[in-house]
C-alpha cells in the first residue's frame, strides 16, 4: 500500500472515529459525571475500583472499535 492510500485511510479512520467518540462522549460520559462525583465524595475506595473498572472497560471497548476500523481500512500489515 502506498503512502497516499495510508494517509487517506488514516484520515477516514480519524473522521469515523471522531464522530463515534463525540456521540459516545455526549451520551455516556456526560451522564457518568454526576454519579462519579457523588461516589468520589462518599466512598473513595469504591470510587477507586469503579474508576479502574471503567478505564479497563472503556479500554477494551475502544480497542475493539479501533481494531475494527484499522482492519476495515487496511491499515494493519499483519491481519
Amino acid at each position: 500500500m502506498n503512502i497516499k492510500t495510508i494517509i487517506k485511510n488514516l484520515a477516514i479512520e480519524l473522521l469515523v472515529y471522531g464522530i463515534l467518540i463525540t456521540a459516545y462522549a455526549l451520551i455516556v460520559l456526560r451522564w457518568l459525571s454526576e454519579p462519579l462525583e457523588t461516589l468520589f465524595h462518599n466512598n473513595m475506595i469504591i470510587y477507586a475500583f469503579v474508576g479502574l473498572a471503567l478505564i479497563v472497560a472503556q479500554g477494551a471497548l475502544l480497542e475493539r472499535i479501533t481494531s475494527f476500523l484499522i482492519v476495515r481500512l487496511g491499515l494493519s500489515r499483519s491481519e
Partner: protein
Amino acid sequence: MEFPIAGVVINPIYLAGIGFLVGILGGFFGVGGGFIAGPMMFLSGVPMNFVIGTDLAHMTGKSIVAARRHRILGHVDIKLGMLMLIGTVIGVEIGAQVVEIIEKMGKANQIIGWAYVVILVAIGSFTAIESIRAIRMIHTQKIEAAEAVGFTGLTKRVQLIRLKPMISLPVSGIASISLWVIIISGLISGILAGFLGVGGGFIRMPLMVYVLGVPTHVAIGTDLFEIIFSAGFGTVTHAIKGNVDIMIALVMQTGAAIGAQIGAVATPYFAGPRIRLLFSGLPFIGAILVIWRLIDTATGSIH
C-alpha cells in the same frame, strides 16, 4: 466541559488531543508518556495532585489498547512481563521509601529533579550513540536490521550468569537466562520509577534491549503489557488518596486509544535501531521539561 472532581473546566477536545499525542508515543515507543502528558495537563489547569493519578489512570487504558495491538503483532512476551513485574512492584515500594528518607533530609524536589535529569540524559545519550552505531553496522557489516545492536557486551555478560533457576523466553528469542536477572532488572526499573514518581517505561524499554537482549519490538510490547498492571495499581492507590479524576482520564483515553493503535501499527514499518534512535529524543524532551520546572520553582521561591 466541567470536571467537578478536579474542579476544572477544560475543553474535552484538548484532553483527547493530549491523549492522542501520548497514545502515538506509547504505541510506538512503549512508554507511558507521563513526562509529556503531565505538564500539558498541568498547563490546562488540572491541579498538580490530580495530574499524576489521573495520568496513571489514562495510561492504564491506553496500554490495554496498545499492548493488545502489539500482542496481535507478536510483540508481547507475557512470561517476561509477568516476571519483571515481580521486581517492579517491590522496586517501586523501595523507591518510594527512598523518597521519604530524602524528604526528611529536605530539598527532596531538587535532589529528585536533578537525579531525574541525569538519568534521562544518560539514557537518551546512550540510546542515541548505540542506535547510530547499529545503523552503521547494518550498512557496513550487512547485518540483519532486527539483530543490529550497537553494544552487545552487557547482554552477553548478563546471559552468561548461570544463577539457577534458568528459564527460556522463546518469544524474545532468549534460549536461557537466569530468573534472577529478570527480577533484578524489574527491581532496578521499579526503584527508579518509584524514586522519580514516573511509570518507568523509558527506563524499562532500554533495560530490556541492552541488558536482557530482548528485540526492540518485543521490548516495546512487553513494556506496555507491564504498564497495564503497574499503572493500574498506581491508579487505585492514587484514587484512594483522592488524586484521580476518572472523567478526565476517560476523556483522554478516547484520544489515546486511537493514537496507541496508530503508534503500534507503525512499529513494523521501522527497524529496531531506527525506533531506538527516535526513542532517544524522548528522554531529552523529558529532561528539558524537568529543568524548566526546577528553574521555575527555584526562581518562584526566590520571588
